[in-house]
């Protein structure tokens, strides 16, 4: 498997200015796990206690220099958000800090992406890293209030986090108290405006922006909403510095990242790899199985690709941009040899269609319509011409909702049709797809591969 | 007599009122009935709007334009209805009673229903005219009053009106009630929530039944005029509320 980097420009994604160490310009991230956040996770089967955490990483740093210190470090480290959007963290933090009113910090531990498990793993194994990050970020942006939002469906996680918060309170190490909340767990509930809306007493549904949370969020105050992994990285940057953070990764994508690899791999799970590792290398780490030829990159909001087309590309936003993909929250799902990509895509589509906030017509009606079309194709029972119907609908649905939910769903569906073209045409002519033929038992019922969660209590957004 | 003071010439005509209902009284009754019909049409069109009912003959914009214009026409008729009732000297209804409930001597409760309905109608129309300048929620909350305004207007007509025993009036009012109940029922049938549907249909049915019962034990019974609160000075003994002019200003 070649790891050649096509000499294309990965774009100036991220930070203005280019204060980079000459070493990292030429480094190619190696195909191995790099234990920074995940240090010593295998030691025990449970969350690290405050004592273990302090022994592992050292005590919570106090910045004698005051607020700007941490912001400078995070900026120099070129940390970007790990929740999917990949926004430069320091820029966001500075935007919140610059505003006059006291700020609010919200840690996003919702992880509504069904194919992602990294945030759960992080909170379950190293909650103090996240809580450190919240505490440090609050100090840096001048926040008087901090919250962490978790899904109601993972009560074991809430218990773990509550225990960690209690430990810290007893030890008196934080300047700020961190409130732990359990939110309804719909797909769109983990979007940052959903969190803010819920914390303000509303439903966990996205709201139209402006204003964005950093301008006016919880209690009308400037609010910093960050993914829990991002905050964990902040906790380590505060201890070891920006230079240390940049020692691994590439020029554009620094440090390490957590990724969830599932599907046709022999060792599915959460891996911590250097940012910029090639997609193929990450899949290999998890033990890509023979015959797995397609991969869903970025989760349910992501896109389907032939592995051969993407295996050499760095698993970063800039690296995947030329092929129209994005790592999202670091999610990879390898399609097993015996699975049908269209069937999986149809299942995802049906799930996404049910997960909209039901606020906008084109999404409320368009997504189920596309899910039907895709379902017809996948079952090999097309009514009329579902392919051209879908193409038409894709154009009509995108951009006409209040949030990006329908756009993401449509993009996923379109990529499935593109990548599984041959299957699509076969299904359209009422023939079984190639994967059914490849499977060990010809014509057996396709077993579902991707996890589709049971729908959260319908109508409960509060 | 107030009328005589305002219009000396008309005073002669109005003076005739002491021998029976004056043209003003007939005007009041007639405009009241027409106003109710117009309000019925308004409500039906409004409900059709919420149910998204439209056709080639009645596209959405026409339906919504009609709803608006018919409601304004209804207001015009209600204003004439109010003025003629006030100007007519017979019942001694003051102008203030048109908007303040329980301020009239004549059938205070039933007249107050009219005042309440009129207040609601004014609020509805005013907020609708200013719709683009007020928050949508404010307009919406006030507009819901329409569902209360219409039944109150109907009961005002049945209770205050002296024609409630006339068969053609009852048939007309019944038809209006049928139209509104039908429209509301059709709309409720389309409701997504079955709770809303059952509750709404039950409420509508209850209202229809209550109205029938009311008419049966109220206006259709002898002695209704007295029970409704017509001042004793205006009650005659010979003619219970029949709507026909009596020689001595009989009970109306």
């Amino acid at each position, binding site marked *: 498997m070649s790891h050649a980097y096509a000499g294309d420009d990965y774009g100036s994604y991220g930070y203005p200015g280019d204060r980079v160490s000459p070493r990292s310009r030429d480094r190619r991230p190696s195909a191995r796990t790099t234990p920074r956040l995940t240090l010593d996770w295998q030691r025990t089967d449970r969350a690290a206690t405050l004592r273990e955490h302090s022994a592992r990483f050292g005590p919570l740093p106090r910045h004698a220099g005051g607020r700007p210190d941490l912001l400078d470090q995070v900026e120099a480290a070129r940390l970007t*958000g790990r929740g999917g959007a990949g926004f430069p963290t320091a820029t966001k933090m500075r935007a919140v800090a610059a505003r006059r009113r006291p700020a609010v910090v919200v840690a996003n531990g919702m992880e*509504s992406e069904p194919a*992602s498990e990294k945030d759960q793993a992080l909170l379950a194994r190293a909650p103090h890293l996240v809580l450190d990050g919240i505490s440090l970020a609050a100090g840096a942006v001048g926040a008087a209030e901090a919250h962490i939002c978790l899904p109601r469906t993972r009560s074991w996680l809430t218990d773990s986090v509550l225990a960690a918060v209690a430990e810290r309170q007893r030890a008196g190490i934080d300047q700020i108290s961190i409130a732990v909340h359990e939110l309804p767990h719909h797909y769109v509930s983990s979007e940052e405006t959903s969190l803010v809306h819920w914390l303000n007493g509303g439903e966990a549904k996205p709201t139209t922006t402006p204003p964005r949370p950093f301008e006016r969020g919880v209690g009308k105050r400037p609010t910093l909403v960050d*993914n829990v992994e991002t905050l964990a990285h902040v906790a380590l940057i505060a201890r070891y510095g920006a230079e240390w953070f940049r020692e691994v990764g590439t020029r554009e994508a620094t440090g390490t990242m957590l990724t969830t690899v599932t599907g046709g791999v022999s060792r599915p799970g959460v891996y911590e790899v250097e940012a910029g590792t090639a997609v193929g290398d990450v899949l290999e780490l998890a033990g890509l199985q023979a015959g797995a030829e397609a991969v869903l990159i970025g989760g349910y909001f992501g896109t389907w690709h032939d592995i051969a087309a993407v295996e050499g590309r760095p698993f970063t936003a800039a690296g995947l941009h030329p092929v129209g993909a994005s790592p999202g929250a670091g999610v990879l799902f390898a399609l097993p040899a015996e699975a049908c990509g269209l069937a999986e895509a149809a299942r995802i589509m049906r799930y996404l269609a049910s997960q909209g906030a039901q606020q*906008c017509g084109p999404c409320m009606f368009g997504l189920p319509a596309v899910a039907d079309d895709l379902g017809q194709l996948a079952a090999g029972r097309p009514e009329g011409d579902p392919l051209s119907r879908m193409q038409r609908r894709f154009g009509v649905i*995108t951009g006409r909702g209040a949030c990006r939910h329908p756009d993401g769903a449509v993009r996923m569906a379109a990529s499935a049709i593109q990548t599984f073209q041959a299957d699509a045409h076969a299904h359209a002519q009422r023939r079984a797809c190639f994967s059914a033929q490849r499977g060990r038992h010809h014509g057996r019922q396709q077993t579902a591969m991707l996890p589709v969660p049971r729908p959260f209590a319908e109508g409960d957004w509060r | 007599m107030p009328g005589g003071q305002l219009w000396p010439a008309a005073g002669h005509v109005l003076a005739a009122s002491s021998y029976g209902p004056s043209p003003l009284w007939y005007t009041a009754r007639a405009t009241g009935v027409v106003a109710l019909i117009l309000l019925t049409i308004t409500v039906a069109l409004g409900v059709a709007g919420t149910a998204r009912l439209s056709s080639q003959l009645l*596209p959405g914009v026409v339906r919504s334009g009609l709803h608006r214009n018919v409601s304004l026409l209804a207001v015009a008729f209600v204003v004439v209805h109010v003025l003629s009732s006030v100007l007519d000297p017979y019942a001694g209804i003051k102008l203030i009673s048109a908007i303040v409930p329980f301020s009239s001597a004549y059938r205070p409760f039933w007249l107050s229903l009219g005042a309440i309905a009129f207040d609601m109608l004014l609020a509805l129309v005013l907020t609708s005219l200013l*719709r683009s300048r007020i928050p949508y929620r404010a307009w919406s909350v006030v507009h819901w009053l329409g569902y209360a305004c219409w039944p109150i207007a109907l009961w005002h007509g049945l209770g205050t009106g002296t024609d409630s025993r006339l068969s053609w009036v009852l048939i007309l009012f019944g038809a209006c009630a049928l139209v509104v109940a039908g429209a509301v029922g059709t709309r409720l049938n389309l409701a997504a929530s079955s709770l809303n549907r059952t509750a709404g249909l039950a409420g509508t049915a209850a209202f229809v039944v209550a109205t029938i019962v009311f008419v049966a034990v109220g206006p259709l019974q002898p002695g209704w005029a007295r029970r409704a609160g017509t001042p004793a000075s205006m009650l005659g003994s010979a003619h219970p509320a029949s709507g026909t002019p009596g020689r001595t200003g009989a009970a109306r």
Partner: protein
Amino acid sequence: MTMTLQIDPIACTGHGLCADLLPELIELDEWGYPILADSVPPDLLAHARRAVSACPALALRLVRVQHQLGPRHQASARPGR
């Protein structure tokens, strides 16, 4: 400086009165929701205003834009999971 129509997608419930009044610029998709053209030519401005006031949900707005952006997006929420 051009005038464009914008829709609040959450307020819009697909009544379709706007498309009746301004078929040149507003088309309904298969589910009854409006698809807007890019800008409002001056000769259709009066019709556009009528369409804006006719919307039962007050979801249609006429706004002035400094310059033409690409495909019209409602100010959007970024997916951050």
